[in-house]
């Protein structure tokens, strides 16, 4: 078993590859790590040199891959009735998540602002155009995309698992995957993602806030759920569905819900 860990996209990324030592396995791990780092440079809203930052600054950008990712995010917005929304950038910032999470002060003053979401975004071939005042945060989908890409690059070298701080995909074997504070899943193919307000959270003016914005209110979601874990075909799909389920959408797939008072509910065929 080959295991590699590195820090990227604001979290710890773990690559597992069930392959013997050798150049092919090392090359696959190298390629997967490079891919994650490349996508971080493309999609980070904290990197002043990223394509996403450039798009948010200018309102228009030509980038084939970013356009494809934004198109996926917009399709997810459509499919979830707006519960998943890439235009929550300003709302997340207003809530206090305006820098890399490690640098966000855990407490401090802050006003209670509701920022409108659902802004107009146009994708025309490789060009993305934002309506005035609209900015994108791809944090809800980019990590899943990176996990899927890394898993696809590892797969030819053997059974593999990619875990980027809770967004996880596996291929080629049954992998026992533990859910924090919950059961262990045997996942043979597919992906898992968890959306929750138990980690990326902070306080402003005595009020607890977190990074999961409800686009209907433009504020951190107010829910009895602490976190939702969803199993789906891809990490992108799992991320989108986990966010939608966290906001109360009735989804139909294997999932584990944990409430704020500590109850764990298995649903969607899990038992």
């Amino acid at each position, binding site marked *: 078993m080959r295991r590699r860990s590195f820090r990227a996209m604001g979290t710890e990324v773990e690559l597992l590859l069930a392959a013997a030592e050798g150049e092919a396995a090392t090359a696959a791990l190298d390629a997967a790590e490079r891919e994650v780092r490349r996508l971080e440079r493309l999609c980070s809203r904290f990197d002043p040199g990223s394509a996403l930052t450039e798009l948010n600054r200018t309102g228009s950008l030509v980038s084939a891959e970013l356009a494809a990712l934004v198109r996926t995010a917009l399709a997810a917005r459509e499919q979830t009735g707006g519960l998943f929304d890439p235009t929550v950038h300003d709302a997340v910032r207003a809530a206090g998540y305006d820098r890399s999470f490690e640098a966000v002060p855990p407490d401090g003053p802050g006003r209670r602002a509701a920022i409108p979401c659902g802004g107009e975004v146009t994708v025309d071939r490789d060009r993305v155009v934002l309506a005035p005042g609209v900015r994108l945060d791809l944090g809800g989908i980019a990590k899943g995309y990176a996990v*899927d890409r890394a898993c696809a690059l590892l797969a030819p070298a053997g059974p593999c698992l990619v875990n980027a701080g809770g*967004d996880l995909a596996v*291929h080629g074997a049954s992998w026992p995957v533990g859910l924090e504070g919950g059961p*262990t*899943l045997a*996942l043979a193919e597919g992906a898992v993602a968890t959306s929750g307000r138990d980690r990326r959270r902070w306080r402003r003016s005595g009020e607890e806030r977190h990074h999961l914005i409800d686009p209907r209110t433009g504020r951190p979601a107010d829910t009895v759920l602490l976190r939702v874990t969803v*199993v789906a*075909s891809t990490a992108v799909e799992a*991320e989108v569905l986990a966010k939608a389920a966290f906001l109360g959408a009735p989804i139909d797939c294997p999932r584990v819900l944990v409430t704020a008072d500590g109850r764990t509910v298995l649903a969607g065929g899990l038992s």
Partner: protein
Amino acid sequence: MTSNPARLYAAALAVLLFFVLWAALAARPWAAAASADPRVAALGRREAALRVEAAAVQARLDRQWAAYRAELRRRSAVPATAVQPQVSITALPPVTTTRSS
């Protein structure tokens, strides 16, 4: 020069001189002299060389762009994990643990 014929000749000569001078100026003889300036010729050669260089750079960029698009198409063609997830609860010890992202 008080006789009328003399004044007429003088006037005709003046008109003739005027048109000759006009024709001479309209021919812009100094322009030909300027084009012969070696510095201008050097600038012309430099411009031509830069045009050739720009065409070469453009061709290289076109090749790189085509290679990038081909690589992007190849990457997009690779399915990530486009199969139905297979999942169950197990008692095995986990190889990794997930948490809220």
